[in-house]
């Protein structure tokens, strides 16, 4: 109709909108602070204490809560929605209130010894299949663990290799090798952890373990003895303990600028030896080595023979004459004989 003007139409539309939104509008002095990520709303408005009397308290609180919740719901309904399996779901943004963490942030672990090496060489990790084909059982078995494909422990026959001792127990040897590998792996794992956390680990034998061998204990005693301000010089010996002779430096070097003539002589002697083409032989060392080997063999035999009858003392077996002659030529450092020679 012609009498309908534009302003009338607009005002009518506004009134309709207001009617619709009457249900959900709430008048507040200050706007609330919203955190839709946490479904949180904060109302800063002053609460009128007059309305907060005892008898009307619950109603007042409920109406306040209703208004605030309405505003929060309005805010949530403004978020983008999507349909997930016939359910309408509103996607929440990230929460804006910062809350403290439970635990401090994890620090990146330093690489282990192997990881450092692999990075250096450019070795990549190869992904392995879960199952491996086992020819013996003709089926797919797992790579390691219970009922694995190639199980060493289940073998009932081990061939003795050519250069091995025929009376050696190959099964026991295999078990022992496995135990050593496990122990080595564990040791390396602990070393990696200690390196990662920068803990100084004491050397061999000094960290307390449940079973310590005689050598480890002796080493611990020695280390404790020299751990004084004067490096053990004034420490008394225990009864029947002998001071070890070769403490301190193991190698003694000549001073840099010393006796020139002796140095010259030494170098000329060295050249003469190198030119000579005859093998050098230290007779005492050779003889000692031979005697030691014979002692060891006889000791083993005697141990097997007399082991059950009890100890026979420090018997070095049958008497031996001096072996004499040429043993193996030995240059350089000789081993100290660690067995006493009995009466011949």
């Amino acid at each position, binding site marked *: 109709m012609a009498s309908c003007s534009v302003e009338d139409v607009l005002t009518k539309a506004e009134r309709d909108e207001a009617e619709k939104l009457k*249900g959900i509008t709430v008048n507040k002095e200050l706007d609330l602070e919203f955190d839709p990520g946490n479904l949180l709303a904060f109302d800063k408005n002053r609460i009128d204490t007059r309305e907060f009397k005892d008898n009307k308290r619950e109603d007042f609180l409920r109406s306040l*809560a209703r208004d*605030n919740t309405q505003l929060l*719901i309005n805010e949530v309904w403004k978020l983008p929605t999507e349909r997930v399996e016939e359910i309408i*779901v509103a*996607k*929440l943004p990230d929460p804006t209130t910062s*809350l*403290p963490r439970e635990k401090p942030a*994890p620090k990146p672990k330093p690489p282990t010894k192997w990881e450092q090496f692999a990075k250096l060489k450019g070795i990549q990790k190869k992904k392995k299949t879960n199952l491996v084909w086992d020819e013996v059982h003709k089926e797919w078995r797992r790579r390691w663990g219970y009922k694995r494909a190639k199980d060493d422990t289940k073998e009932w026959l081990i061939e003795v290799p050519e250069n091995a001792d025929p009376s050696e127990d190959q099964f026991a040897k295999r078990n022992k090798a496995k135990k050593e590998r496990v122990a080595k792996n564990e040791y390396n794992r602990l070393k990696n952890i200690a390196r990662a956390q920068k803990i100084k680990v004491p050397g061999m034998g000094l960290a307390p373990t449940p079973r310590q061998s005689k050598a480890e204990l002796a080493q611990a005693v020695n280390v404790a003895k020299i751990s004084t301000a004067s490096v053990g010089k004034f420490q008394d010996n225990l009864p029947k303990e002998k001071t070890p002779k070769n403490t301190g430096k193991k190698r003694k070097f000549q001073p840099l600028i010393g006796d020139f003539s002796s140095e010259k002589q030494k170098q000329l002697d060295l050249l003469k030896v190198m030119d000579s083409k005859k093998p050098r032989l230290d007779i005492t060392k050779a003889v000692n080595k031979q005697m030691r080997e014979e002692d060891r063999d006889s000791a083993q035999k005697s141990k097997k023979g007399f082991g059950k009858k009890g100890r026979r003392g420090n018997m070095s077996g049958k008497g031996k004459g001096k072996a004499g002659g040429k043993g193996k030529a030995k240059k350089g450092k000789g081993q100290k004989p660690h067995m006493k020679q009995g009466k011949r």
Partner: protein
Amino acid sequence: LQALHRILKAKTRRSKRFLQSRQPKLTEDQKSSMIIRGGNTSQTVSQALKDVYALKKPNAVLYKRKNMVRPFDDSTALEFFSKKSDCSLFLFGSHNKKRPNNLIFGRMFDFHVLDMFELGIERFVSLRDVKTDTCPEGTKPLLVFAGELFETDREHQRLRSLLTDFFCGPRVSAVRLAGLEHVLHFTALEGKIYMRSYKVLLKKSGCRTPRIQLQDMGPSFDFVMRRNHMASDDLYKTAHRQPRGVKPKKKKNISHDAFGTRLGRLHMQKQDLDKLQTRKMKGLRKRRGEQTAETAAAAAKAPRTDE
């Protein structure tokens, strides 16, 4: 304790998973809370603890036996409990003549106490007394804090942060619109905190957003503020420090104009527009004959304009 976990290798996969779930992570899971009963508790306090446990299930453990612990004097026992159960929030309830119906809300950082607030219960209405149907366990509640004290007073600010931490549920990326059923409303007035819990009824309104009606539900508390132990500012700051991987990398060079279209800038080298290679349209190509006619026309025009 974490070092010990690494040295003791997990023997089964299940135990390995368990240990890994307790390691610190970049983005953390929901905090679990332990609800502890103190040396002597009244009926109110026991019921209050049970109600809060019901609200916070399944991420809560309730220690029902009496624990002779005084959190404000010596918090080592609480720290030990938190290490054992891997909980960073705690609620300790006790009752004695000096402090009747006492609840201590607290949170931990790295298994050491960060904040502790002691609130006394003046009035308590339990879940059992209000006979309405409740919402399912584990719904993320709507949290509303009212009162300017929560903004102005420093202790109230900290308490607000603590209560948010305690009662906000898991961190979710999306929420079902019909599932917003539970609202917790905290009002701060004259040193007292009124906590009410309502069930939200979404009614039809003229438009898309529904009209809210609230129904009384659940525990309602009237708290009075007693002692507190707040963390020092630098400890508080350290606790908030986020690791570098968490913040998402901001995508640069994306802008939106007024119409909502996505714009970006391309940076090019300077181009010689004369030598620009455009699409060749055969029909528009200038022919020899036309070219001379055009130049003639141009030449004819030029002297005319000169005049």
